[in-house]
């Protein structure tokens, strides 16, 4: 098992990583209690790779993902995406970064309940530069027939696929998924993972998937094991399994 991050599989000369995190810490101060969610994370991610982030609950995975996505800033350390410095506490710059580069998929979908599937996607396409149409994005996740349904009229898996459509519709360079299958049964989960893998493959989107589920690690280029606020080790899979081959 390689200890350090290695280049992505397809490119021969080592390219510059697209994400570069060094010595990241994040401390939450809640009254008396001090929670160290991250305690010195060094991590490089490369363009186009699919990384699975594995780790026990409370180990800081979401915290890291949020920082990579510009939803939160670290307490100390540096993190860079391409030429963006993600440690700056500048709301406007962060908003701009998220708007232009990042797609999120959340564990609880976070769809806007008052908007239909199509409108939830449109919400994002309307503010991006070169998006797909909401219809294309929904077709990509196999939901073209349910376009005009409200979230409350869809199953969890369908909602999660809408959330993915929403995340990828703007053709982001980065797709960050926080336990996208956490609330789904195995069969639906596989369907959702297939979509993520396809987007990664077809659009070349750098993708990070957080999960508790070790089985899912098999579909990644690299697997980052997380524990107690730190990277424990990084595995490189010799070959990626297709999502459809997974089962749990």
């Amino acid at each position, binding site marked *: 098992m390689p200890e350090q991050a290695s280049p992505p599989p397809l490119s021969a000369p080592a390219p510059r990583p697209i994400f570069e995190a060094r010595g990241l810490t994040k401390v939450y101060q809640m009254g008396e209690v001090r929670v160290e969610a991250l305690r010195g994370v060094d991590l490089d991610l490369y363009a186009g790779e699919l990384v699975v982030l594995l780790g026990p609950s409370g180990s800081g995975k*979401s*915290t890291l993902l*949020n920082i990579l*996505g510009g*939803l*939160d*800033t670290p307490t100390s350390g540096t993190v860079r995406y391409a030429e963006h410095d993600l440690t700056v506490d500048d*709301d*406007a710059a962060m*908003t*701009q970064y*998220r*708007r*232009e580069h*990042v*797609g*999120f998929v*959340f564990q*609880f979908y*976070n*769809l*806007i*309940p*008052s*908007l239909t599937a199509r*409108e*939830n996607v*449109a*919400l*994002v396409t*309307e*503010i*991006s530069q070169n998006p797909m149409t909401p219809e294309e994005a929904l077709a990509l996740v196999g939901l073209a027939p349910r376009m005009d349904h409200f979230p409350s009229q869809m199953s969890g898996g369908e909602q999660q696929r809408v959330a993915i459509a*929403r995340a990828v519709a703007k053709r982001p360079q980065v797709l960050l998924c926080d336990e996208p299958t956490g609330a789904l049964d195995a069969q639906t989960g596989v369907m959702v993972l297939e979509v993520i893998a396809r987007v990664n493959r077809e659009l070349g989107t750098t993708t990070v998937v957080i999960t508790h589920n070790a089985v899912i690690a098999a579909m990644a280029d690299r697997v980052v094991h997380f524990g107690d606020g730190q990277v424990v080790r990084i595995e490189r899979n010799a070959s990626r399994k297709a999502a459809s081959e997974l089962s749990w």
Partner: protein
Amino acid sequence: MRAIDRKLWRDLWHMRGQAVAIALVVMCGVGTYVMFLSTLGALRATQDDYYREYRFAEVFATLKRAPESLRARIAAIPGIERVETRVVEPVRLDMPDFPEPVSARMVSLADDAPHGLNGLHLRAGRLPLPGRADEVVVSTPFAKAHTLHPGDRFHAILNGRRQALTVVGTALSPEFVQQLRPGSAFPDPKRYGVMWMGRKALGQAYDLDGAFNDLALSLRPGADAQDVIDRVDALITPFGGLGAYARKDQLSHRFLTQELDQLGTLATLFPTMFMGVAAFLLNVVISRLVTMQREQVATLKAFGYGNGAVIAHYLKLVAMIAGSGVLGGTALGVWLGYALSGIYMEFYYFPWLRFSLQTQTVLEAAGASFAAAGAGTVVAVWRAASLSPAQAMRPEPPPRYRETLVEKLGIKRWLSQPTRMILRHIWRKPLKSALTVLGIALACGIILTGLFQRDTVGYMMNVHYGMAQREDLSVAFTEPTAYRARFDLAGLPGIEHVEAFRSVPVRLRHGHLDYRTTIRGIEPHGDLQRLLDTELRPVAMPSDGILMTDHLGKILDVRAGDRIVVEVLEGNRPLREAVVAGLVKEYLGVAAYMDLAALNRFMHEGPTISGAWLAVDHAQLQGLYARLKGLPRVAGVAERVQEIRNFNRLMDETMLFFTYVSTVFAVIIAFGVIYNSARIALTERGRELASLRVLGFTRGEIGYILLGELGILTLVAIPLGLKLGEAMCYYIAQTMQTDLFRVPVVLVPQTYAFAVAVVLISALLSGLAVRRRLDRLDLIAVLKTPE
């Protein structure tokens, strides 16, 4: 439409009940503001135009008799633009359709200058032809009251001679926008009117041919009115001048001005209250909405919507609610404004009313609404938007509860679990609970303000006409008359009791303050006319010194024992000092009193009277009228019952309007506050309540937990609201202190009961509306969704 705007519409639809409740409150605020201000604007504009177009004079004076040659000397005073000499006389009328005595003020019209000062606005017919002593123009309200048309005839006693007069026209004049019989507080067009006759004819009737007894002047721009008045006084004093006065002291103008100022105060009081409530409601509703949507806010931000966009999103929502309130309120305000102006047009005689909605008024109202709405919202939205999205995505920590003070007092064991939940919930957000109480209390208070005028006026009338002024009829003589005239009156059949009085027109001075009024000399120990102290006990008339109405005391800034200067405006116009013996309580008018004999001594005259108050046998009233009309010296007769009736008729309409409007508004506020609180409680605690249902609580029990809180707040609010209402009534009463009448604050038990009932019913209805939702609480859905 953009997706984010769709969300807006759907959110709005989802919260439509609350949105409507808030929009209604905004509507009331804008409505009252537009109503008051557009009425005020309309009346002011009408007043201005009317005064200008009909050349309302700026300085007035009355005198006994001066030759026309004086005119040129007056005209030579610098600053005077125009001089009009007139003949003005009180006359008695004999109306064919009406047995009771009727009096009028007869004013001369310049025969040669049709565009003189105080021009007539003819409503029908024409002006009298020069020299025609039998032609008059009568004031429109008088004509209406007696259904007079050009060509109709009636008789008048001019200078003791009975004379037939033909109505050639009906008209209004800027000088008589309010037509009050001297000494009366309410218009009575059936018994008092104004009419106009050619100058020459009227002069001849009163032996004033080539002479005049009244002056109207207009000034050049920038002229110093006081300087003109002083110079005019110097010229007319030798001719029995009673002291010139500026427009601001002209009765019709003065009353109108005071009334409009009052209206201006009300125009700020009510809208301010409504806007306060609207701001509060928007704050709680939007805070709650944003809290509920904090994950949505986080999601929007995660996908690249900036803080500005998020805040704009919610502000748009608020703007739509406030905006519909503004639109509705403007329409409501115009509608109510028409109604209110209509009422004013009954009290004040304008030839037209230029009612128009001022853009500025609407903009101000809209500005205030949006500001209130924005203020109520921005903080809540800002708090949500400024959270980092990662933070906002996490569920809110469970609310912190504490034991309440009430529980700590040791009565905890008496309280059931549900009751403890209620108390802790109230306690958790003390500010919000307090504001809810305040909102409900305001509703309660507003009802009192709407009804108090009725109670108060009833009380005023009782005191004034029941305890102080208790005669059946009052008779005024054309001029001071020997005391024995009292016995002539007493001898008439049907008269049970007579009390004589002497009225002397004066200008009272204290330091730099002065006021024109009359001193009434009254018989001591009288029973028909009594003076009351502040406790409403009859005051014995001191044998020396002046008693005056407390309001006059305030105007002149005098207390018992102070010395004042009395400038008599009659006879040879002596200037004397007098001592203020004390102040008396009177709600109407601005009079001063002396013992009759003392006043005669003060005037250096023998026993003289100006009129008398009569108690009569009502069975013989008709015959008595006829005899009184026949008496040559009687200038006018006023009947007390009629005064009261007139007043009530006028008041009823006004009061009904205010009662109605304030009740509807109070219901809206009460409903807006209570319903919104209940709805918010329901969203905040839906899960909790559903869990309780799952645990086996009945609908009634969870209904109690949810609505019990509002019940308690309502019960706390009611006594507070009654106190608040009293305070508002005092404030309004304070603004209604005019020379015409002062308003005490009197509230009868029924009014309190009504206010309480309205609030309770509104609370009940809001409770029921929410209770219906509570019954349909979806247990599964509530428990399933992630918090």
